[in-house]
């Protein structure tokens, strides 16, 4: 690919582009869907394609095409330059990129069990074994959908700064949804696990373990009551503190969104949370779903501290925002695939460990909520966040009590960061798919954490 790419980059520079970048992919994907013990479909596909991005008089031009043929790539670069030219007359602040060191690298993955070589039948058996565990768990289980996904192959990258990177990609992702029903009560629980390791991971994360976990969560909800609405103290589990770190805080610290007017716009170097709060976005955690060696601008992934002891010490950058802030890019530029341009995305985002046991966190709470597992979450640039919850319990006199359902909680990110008053000594990282106009696998987590107050949206 290297010499073909060089010709395209050369053509772009001759057309007047100040920066040219090509990404290409040869990826192979398998998806298996089962619904209620029935294999609905086995889907497989090859996705080849290329994305060309140019900076032309301070404006981005981007063209994607589902082919790797040289002629198409040359057409695409002409197209990208032509389009950028169309708006370059309007630009007030031309885009500039922070300098980076040129990288020449080949990242080869050697999983013990390469998913692209595992027979389809073995993958189907894995999914059906999980399905069976779920239906066997309890007779109130009425329905179950499981989606298994693996992606493998290679991404190629070259730019006019003389970087050339070949990087193997490998993702495993297993998502389960379970529905239970008893008389007129209905419940739904879901679970997602994901890895950047080989298929051998399912020997430890067995279908039985995964199936039982999600089935139990679903069936337990049948006994749950609707909570009181209002402001209460809460202990947030690792899943919840993860989605808080990612959704409520993380997005505000993506430099493109910070500059777009997030509440953090003038907070760099300032205290935004309690002393016990340290939040990190880390692209280097071995095997974690949000990890990689190089981002889609050819910048090495790194461990980026966002909040240290309550103070904002960093943001997540691509080359463009790093230049604006006069800092170094953090390796957060990611593109879903060749159809999209790289944008600032989180990797594995988490709150660091403290020193409290779970029991110590519960101590002293007369009435509050233990919020354990989420259904989804969303934040706004003004710092308003919402997290919909699928598993939560009352805390009564320092002990975990009855389960509650249809709970969701919300608050203001900065107020909540200040309201953190104790951090646990455990740690768990979980998996999610983040949507910011394009999808990205991300990790999120942390320890059990206590907050003085959150707003619970209930009924009573």
């Amino acid at each position, binding site marked *: 690919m290297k010499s073909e790419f060089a010709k395209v980059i050369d053509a772009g520079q001759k057309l007047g582009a100040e920066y040219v970048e090509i990404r290409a992919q040869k990826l192979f994907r398998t998806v298996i869907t089962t619904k209620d013990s029935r294999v609905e479909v086995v889907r497989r596909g090859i*996705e080849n394609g290329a994305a060309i991005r140019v900076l032309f008089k301070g404006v981005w031009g981007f063209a994607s095409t589902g082919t790797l043929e040289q002629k198409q790539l040359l057409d695409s670069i002409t197209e990208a330059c032509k389009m950028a030219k169309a708006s370059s007359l*309007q630009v007030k602040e031309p885009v500039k990129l922070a300098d980076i060191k040129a990288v020449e690298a080949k990242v080869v993955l050697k999983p013990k069990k390469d998913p692209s070589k595992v027979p389809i039948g073995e993958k189907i058996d894995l999914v059906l074994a999980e399905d069976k565990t779920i239906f066997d768990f309890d007779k109130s289980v009425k329905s179950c959908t499981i989606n298994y996904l693996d992606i493998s192959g290679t991404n190629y990258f070259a730019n006019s700064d003389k970087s050339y990177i070949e990087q193997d990609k490998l993702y495993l992702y297993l998502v389960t949804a379970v529905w239970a029903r008893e008389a007129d009560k209905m419940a*739904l629980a879901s679970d997602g696990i994901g890895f950047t390791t080989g298929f051998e991971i399912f020997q430890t994360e067995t279908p039985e373990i995964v199936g039982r976990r999600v089935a139990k969560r679903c069936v337990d909800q049948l006994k749950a009551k609707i909570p009181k609405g209002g402001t209460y103290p809460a202990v947030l589990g690792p899943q919840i503190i993860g989605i808080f770190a990612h959704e409520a805080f993380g997005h505000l610290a993506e430099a493109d969104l910070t500059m*777009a007017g997030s509440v953090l716009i003038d907070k760099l170097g300032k205290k935004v949370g309690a002393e016990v709060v340290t939040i990190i976005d880390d692209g280097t955690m071995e095997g974690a779903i949000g990890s990689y060696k190089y981002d889609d601008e050819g910048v090495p992934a790194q461990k980026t501290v966002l909040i240290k002891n309550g103070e904002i010490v960093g943001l997540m950058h691509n080359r463009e925002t790093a230049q604006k802030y006069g800092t170094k890019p953090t390796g957060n530029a990611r593109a879903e695939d060749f159809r999209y341009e790289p944008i600032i995305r989180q990797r594995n985002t988490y709150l660091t460990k403290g020193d409290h046991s779970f029991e110590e966190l519960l101590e002293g709470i007369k009435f509050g909520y233990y919020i354990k597992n989420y259904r989804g979450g969303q934040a706004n640039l003004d710092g308003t966040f919402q997290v919909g919850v699928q598993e939560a319990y009352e805390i009564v006199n320092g002990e975990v009590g009855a389960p509650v*359902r249809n709970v969701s909680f919300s608050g203001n990110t900065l107020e909540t960061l200040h309201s953190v008053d104790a951090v646990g000594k455990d740690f768990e990282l979980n998996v999610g798919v983040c949507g910011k106009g394009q999808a990205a696998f991300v990790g999120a987590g942390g320890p059990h954490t206590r907050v003085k107050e959150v707003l619970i949206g209930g009924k009573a």
Partner: protein
Amino acid sequence: MAKLKPEELANFGEKAVKAAMKNGANEAEAFLSETLTTIVGIERNQISKNIRKNDQGLGIRAVYNKAIGFSYTNVLNDKSIEETAIDAFRSAKASKPDKNWSGFAASKKYGATKDTFDKKLIDISSDGLVDIASVMLAEAADYDKRVFVAEGEVQTQLSSRTVVNSCGVEGFDEGTSIECGLATVAREGQEVTPVCMEFNAERVYKIDPKWVGKEAAKQAISSLKARKVGIESFPVIFNQTAFSELLYFTFINAVKADQVQRKQSALEGKIGKKVASELVTIYDDGLMANGLNTWKFDGEGVPCQKTPIIEKGTLRHYLYDGYAAKKDGVESTGNALRRGIAPYMSTPIIEATNFVITPGNKSADELIDDVDNGIIVYSLQGAHSSNPSTGEFSVVGTPAWKIEKGEIAYAIKGAMVAGTIFDVLNNVSALGNNVRKVNQIVAPWITVENVRIIGK
């Protein structure tokens, strides 16, 4: 533009079906899509990027002994298509039979669609899109200095779909669309408003970027000086965006036949029963003129149609694809969707097309006039975290405003809106006449009584 002719696409489809059958499939179905997207992107008050995406490909479902395999490729040549067909067949052979499988769609005549294709949208140049973006930006900037455009875009799309199966189905349809939108915030001192979004989306070249720019700015400015409310039940006016978010993650799931059959829906056994206020009438209309989701046929080649869902509060019908329809002994309603930016990569799922809520006769101002003490909500944060099974939701209304004595009084912040979709539908008390298309929904503003608000 590297656009393939309808005959070429049909030819590829036929070749794929033939290759699968020749290799031993009992049945086969090919779906091809081609999408050309042009985007002018806005970031931080200026046009910052120009994007062109070209995507085409073929997906084939092959059936062997009632087991289904699917394979796709974005390399369209004879060799690749043959390999893809064989791969789909191999997947089917490796999979397990589905005893309920009863075949692909049979050939039927397709109805006519109107205003789904506009040649002007193909001819419009990058310069033309830059002009539209500039108009939106200028309007927003002129409205008030405190407005900041976080992002925005103008997008045109030309897409086509082709379906061919071994039961005689052969269809081709193409369509255009245009969308322009802005996301704004307003800043004053330490206060930042939530993001306010406004947009126009049409199938033909009939957008009003001036209105979009001005309206997005106006919403941001009027979101300043937000206050908190207490815990109380209020009448709430939902605009189309807020209502579409609520409906999409709750009620629309509950009327999907597969979810009903699989005991995931609270609407199981409710056909012919009252599930909403008498004021509520909803159709799913896959053939609606200028509808954002209007096509001649669905993802299985079944003709799209108009299906009554709720008539005057009574549940009439569920949404079906071919598989669920055969299970219930009814006809498919043409609701099998191939989802996503590259539809050829996906297998069909049941989805609403244009979910049309019949409007009332009140103007937007009259709806507000009628509320003595209530709230108006323009968007819901966290609607995707609703429980699609029970219809329960607990979300943040943002941006939202307090209505007092028939007037918009002030912006409110951090107010949660909680309840179940079935209570919401039963408590609809008025519908406006201001119909708009937002995602799957075609609806007016809707007033709902007695909605629980948790403010602090």
